């Protein structure tokens, strides 16, 4: 087996050195009647064979780059520069562990420090951590953190929050003894969330742009939350939007969480992604996850270490702020490199291209007979109402080689009033030809 260095001669010599007769002697602690003799699985395979097997599975899927592609709802198809994928595959980044030995992991640590700074600046917050698993788990961690800070346990979730994020919060909260008030789905972006906030509220969770694409003015929600001693948790699933819209930190958010996949990371059928988590300096000791901090070494030179670990599970055990250990280090690295390549100039332009493309597409689609746009405001994703079942139409469009978006029924099943709604995203990867193909195909299937 190509990954195993020992020859049988090596193995025999090593067993002799250990002082046992056979390898079985080293497994003597496993009760004899429980020992397995062979698994019902295929035997070892060479590289070519594995490539054939997995290549065959890959070929059964439609890759985003191969068709006009408008699918979003929490994960977005963006162009990732070649430099990013090269750098993240460098041995020293790819095959290194969590930086517990700072003297020989300054590379990872400095990247995390840069990442934390980028996230703080993007969100308009004071501190950010070194990443979470993804946007949805960052959201539930933010809710738990708000409960610790407010010593209350009721979260209010906006109807514009991604339904899967809502489900993650709703799954954990009752088990943790907490309460969740979820507002009904808000495809028009008109809900009155202020009415749901009262003196027992721990936190209000609002996504902007919402899952339906609406940009939400967070300032009045923050004001109402603060008035009753609650916190505002701002959520985003499209981090590129922060290049063009007011950061949640400037609108009064106390905790900002989101999905960072769009920058540097592939779609990968849903993971691995990178959860972003930022907050106010005064809340830092209640944050979950790894934090990288600046310090000096014994010669007085600047260096970086993981810090404030007394919050964490390996020190505090059942009193920890979270159980998180492994996070999304390499995805955070990809994010940092891509964001470095973009810089402020590139990010702002990328955001404008996304917005411009979405505006053009929204105008063309809503010009079709029977199709209407639900959004006044949006960034690179919007909701349209179709004259028919959106899931059926998406399948028909897929048959015509256009991946048109996410039917709301995929996220909110069983609600007939939402069945004709389609979420459509357009990013910099879409060309005029892509948009024209979408509009033409939709016109055909509606005809």
């Amino acid at each position: 087996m190509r990954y195993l260095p020992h020859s049988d001669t090596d193995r025999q010599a090593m067993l002799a050195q250990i002082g046992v007769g056979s390898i079985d002697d080293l497994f003597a602690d496993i009760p004899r009647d429980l020992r397995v003799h062979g698994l019902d699985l295929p035997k070892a395979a060479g590289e070519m064979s594995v490539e054939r097997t997995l290549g065959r599975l890959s070929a059964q899927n439609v890759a985003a780059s191969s068709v006009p592609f408008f699918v979003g709802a929490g994960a977005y198809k963006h162009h990732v520069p070649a430099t990013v994928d090269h750098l993240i595959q460098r041995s020293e980044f790819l095959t290194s562990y969590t930086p517990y030995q700072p003297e020989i992991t300054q590379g990872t640590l400095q990247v995390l420090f840069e990442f934390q700074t980028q996230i703080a600046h993007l969100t308009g917050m004071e501190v950010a951590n070194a990443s979470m698993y993804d946007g949805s788990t960052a959201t539930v961690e933010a809710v738990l953190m708000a409960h610790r800070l407010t010593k209350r346990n009721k979260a209010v979730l906006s109807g514009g929050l991604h339904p899967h994020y809502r489900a993650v919060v709703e799954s954990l909260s009752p088990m943790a003894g907490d309460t969740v008030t979820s507002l009904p789905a808000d495809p028009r972006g008109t809900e009155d969330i202020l009415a749901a906030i009262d003196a027992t509220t721990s936190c209000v969770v609002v996504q902007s742009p919402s899952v339906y694409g609406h940009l939400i003015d967070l300032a009045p929600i923050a004001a109402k939350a603060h008035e009753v001693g609650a916190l505002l948790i701002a959520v985003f699933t499209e981090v590129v939007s922060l290049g063009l819209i007011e950061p949640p930190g400037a609108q009064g958010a106390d905790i900002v969480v989101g999905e960072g996949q769009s920058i540097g990371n592939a779609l990968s059928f849903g993971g691995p992604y990178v959860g972003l988590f930022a907050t106010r300096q005064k809340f830092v000791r209640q944050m979950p996850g790894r934090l990288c901090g600046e310090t000096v070494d014994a010669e007085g030179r600047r260096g970086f270490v993981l810090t404030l670990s007394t919050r964490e599970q390996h020190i505090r055990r059942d009193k920890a702020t979270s159980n998180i250990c492994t996070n999304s280090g390499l995805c955070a690295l990809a994010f940092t490199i891509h964001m470095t390549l973009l810089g402020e100039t590139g990010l702002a332009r990328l955001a404008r291209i996304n917005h411009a493309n979405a505006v053009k597409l929204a105008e063309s689609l809503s010009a079709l007979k029977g199709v209407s746009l639900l959004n006044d405001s949006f960034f690179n994703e919007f909701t349209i109402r179709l004259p028919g079942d959106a899931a059926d139409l998406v399948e028909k469009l897929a048959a015509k080689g256009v991946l048109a978006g996410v039917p709301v029924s995929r996220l909110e099943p069983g609600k007939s009033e939402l069945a004709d709604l389609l979420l459509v995203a357009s990013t910099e990867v879409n060309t005029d030809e892509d948009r024209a193909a979408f509009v033409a195909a939709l016109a055909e299937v509606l005809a």
Partner: protein
Amino acid sequence: MSMNSQGRPTVAATAATSAIPDTFTGNRALQIEEALLFEVGRHDVTGVDLDEPADFAPRLGKLARKLPIDLPGLSEPETMRHYVRLSQKNYSIDSGLYPLGSCTMKHNPRLNERMARLPGIGDVHPLQPLSTVKGAVELMTELSRWLIEMTGMTSVALSPKAGAHGELCGMMAIKAAIAAKGETRNIVLVPESAHGTNPATAALIGFKVVTVPARPDGTVDVAAVKALLSPDVAAIMLTNPNTCGLFERDVVEIAAAIHAAGAYFYCDGANFNAIVGKAKVGELGVDAMHINLHKTFSTPHGGGGPGAGPVVLSARLAAFAPLPFIRIEADGPVLVETEEALRPGETPFGRMTAFHGQMGMFVRALSYMLSHGSDGLQQASEDAVLNANYVRAGLRDLMSQPSGDRTCMHEVLFDDTFLEGTGVTTLDFAKAMIDEGYHPMTMYFPLVVHGAMLIEPTESESKASLDLFIATLRDLVMKAKAGELERFQQAPRFAPRRRLDETRAARSPKLKWEKPEPWVEAAAAE
């Protein structure tokens, strides 16, 4: 695993002035100092060529960004050099032995990276029409088949994103199963040798953690477990092989006692790599176990993730697996994403994450499994155990083991008794290894052993590599005993940084770059 306070010195020794004269640049040949992005980047530089869109009417309402972001950029060559230089300050499994006990730093085959970048894997969206991702669902089904056969369990929940997330998934399934029976059990038993994630996970969903004492050799005391059982006990969380590197010989008896008390057996699968193809946890009485694909199945650790933590479930828990899950139907596997799609008997406790789990890790792990095959997986476990015992045999006369010299599994545990009277601590000893070109072993974990040093060489190391590692550690022990205190207390001397002041970092946390005050900048320019 990380460090902790058990026996660990809290005050770092100050370094003697370096004998090496400073260079003009501060560089030391291949060790090149690299400023922060925020010090070298410029706001008007970008490394990506994008065309400004034609004029259009924005739809941002009143929420268009008014504030600058403060995100410096670099051109492509500058970006390349910046991150290549940073990478060169890292130790990695590709460059050397990485004996972190419990972390399983084994070779990461590059075939797996290539497979993860196949267009039909890396470039598919989780919410595309299911008709366009049949291969992705089949891949998840195939991975499930391998995991179920290797563990002898009933089903698998693939979506958890890492080991600790898998623990949470398993414990939520247990909580749901208890609730479904109309019971209110609130105690979870956790051995004192457990990973910190175990008690943290149990506490996260409202369980009260009760610690189970260890026997002198670090294994769980069956009598102690039985004494703690009551109608309030929901589960035990047990690591097997345990964090001392020993197989829990009484695991079947423990499982029987737990089940007789109406509770569940959660197994922490961090050390599953020792027993793949040797024992099936389903036959040991386990009800749920997460599998760290980034340990046992070699998906790269990436400097701290991403991981993946699928959870295998027994028949008692299978119905509670979270959404989404795969149902095998007559005409193929089906991805069940919503409650509306459930059939009788399917009672998921909810959802762990937005999408379907770490597909990028699934494909790497499956590539690893297909490459090894059933024969190679068993050989890998055997070689991992062989290598750990070989290290034990090479050091047993010089380094102390907490419960005497006995056969271990995939990792060997030493304590700091052998350093008594030398003035050298476990931390010093570990830092001296850095100067010799090795990443240290796991230190001060597990907590049940004073000054613990947990060494996991993995199956990836050749005999020659282990011989040199053993010889190096033997030499260091001799030097410690010979009183060469400074060598240890000053270590590391040759790394990109000397010891870092962690106390200072925690006392006044500086967690992001701040623009220096103008007078500081002026002084620096002089």
